[in-house]
């Protein structure tokens, strides 16, 4: 029989779900505010959404300590970029930087599942979705986290975007209006909360458009 040795477990799973949707002239990112560990709730009021640049936000679920560290690293790199190049980072540039930062720790990854939203060079909404080691793709909408597999099929159904299976790939920005997209977000979170124990408490929705950045909250089931 091999000896049982105490091992240090570097990761924890704090749960939570993030969703992002891009429209023609707006983008929406939403995340629940529950932070858990195991079967316990640590807090009902934790924001998973972070502003990286003027019009670029990131929402991350997974291990929140790694999320916080990643946010700090990106913030520092953005500051250096601003000093060296005299301008803010564009969203596509931030997207590439996040991918490289994640891959840098390929053999001891950040346990984070991210979505990045912002505006591309032409002012159209864009969403970038990531895995834990930096593989990324520009998409029209995405969900990450514990409730993602419950939510993604509903978004595929409800957002009236071109199918992601088409070749050549079409730009999957949703034709819905901002208000319609927010309604869809509230609906999918309500459904995910019913079935996923890690999702619930409150929903934080951040909307970015030409006027600036706006924050809304919606209640979710607390059980």
């Amino acid at each position: 029989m091999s000896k049982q040795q105490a091992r240090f477990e570097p990761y924890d799973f704090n749960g939570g779900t993030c969703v992002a949707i891009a429209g023609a002239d707006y983008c929406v990112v939403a995340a629940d505010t529950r932070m858990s560990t195991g079967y316990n709730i640590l807090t009902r009021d934790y924001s998973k959404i972070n502003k990286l640049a003027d019009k670029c936000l990131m929402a991350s679920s997974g291990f929140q300590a790694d999320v916080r560290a990643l946010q700090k690293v990106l913030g520092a790199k953005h500051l250096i970029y601003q000093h060296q190049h005299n301008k803010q980072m564009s969203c596509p540039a931030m997207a590439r930087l996040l991918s490289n930062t994640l891959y840098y720790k390929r053999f001891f990854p950040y346990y984070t599942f991210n979505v990045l939203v912002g505006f591309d060079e032409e002012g159209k909404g864009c969403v970038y979705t990531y895995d834990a080691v930096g593989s990324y793709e520009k998409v029209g909408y995405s969900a990450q986290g514990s409730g993602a597999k419950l939510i993604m099929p509903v978004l595929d159904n409800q957002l009236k975007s071109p199918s992601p299976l088409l070749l050549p790939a079409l730009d999957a920005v949703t034709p819905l209006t901002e208000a319609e997209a927010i309604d869809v977000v509230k609906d999918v979170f309500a459904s995910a909360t019913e079935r996923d124990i890690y999702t619930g408490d409150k929903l934080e929705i951040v909307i970015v458009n030409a006027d600036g950045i706006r924050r809304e909250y919606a209640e979710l089931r607390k059980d």
Partner: protein
Amino acid sequence: MRGEEKHVTAIDHMLEEQEGDEKEMEFLSVLPAASALTEYDRGVNTFSPEGRLFQVEYAIEAIKIPLLNVRSCASYLDRIGLFCGFFNWLGSTAIGLKTKEGVVLAVEKRITSPLLEPSSVEKVMEIDECIGCAMSGLIADARTLVEHARVETQNHRFSYGEPMTVESTTQALCDLALRFGEGDEESMSRPFGVSLLIAGHDEKGPSLYYTDPSGTFWQCNAKAIGSGSEGADSTLQEQYNKDLTLKEAETIALSILKQVMEEKVTPNNVDIAKVAPVYHLYTPAEVEEVISRL
């Protein structure tokens, strides 16, 4: 010693913020006596008592930088106590002009022998898809700088998925200029003896930058560097205006080169390149076409 006195006078003039051509010519014609310099000009990192880095100044003299406007250079001069004399220079002439359509670079190849293979003399090089560079002075030093710039621009593309701006590229080049000295293993033994004209196109439109061995860079609408730069710059001042077309700029650049070059201009002894908006080195046929328009 007479030489030393005159030398101090020149510095005083500069610090008083001189005006007018008279004073300019006066201090420009002052040369330090050789005996006044020997103590402080050997060590690469050694300041002279007047606060001058002679090795950097000598590196600049390897190309030559004419003073067009003393006032505009006053703060730069204060810092490193540079003065410029008009000696014979090693650097072949290079000219850059910026237009709304793009930037033109023209260089004198200086083929010293009919046995020399003209296409092997490369004095205009591409740094990135939308950035090119013309050089004057110690060409081997320039190759090191261009290679560094190429690496920096590609690193930027990898990290950020976007092209590097022309100003950032120029700054990256100039960061290298002062890494010389005796202590560190990593540093060079002497300053770079080369001036560069960086021509590029980015989201701000076309731009032209000029660098020298001190590590300073200036943004210009038009500039000439190298041995013929004094005359070339004054002609550029007369002929340049912001609304030139690219074709007109080509003609002006080449006609000025013709002025300063001793030999007749042929497709084999000049190089022309444009960045409009991508870098393109002219083929001999295209150069011939511009020559025929002169």
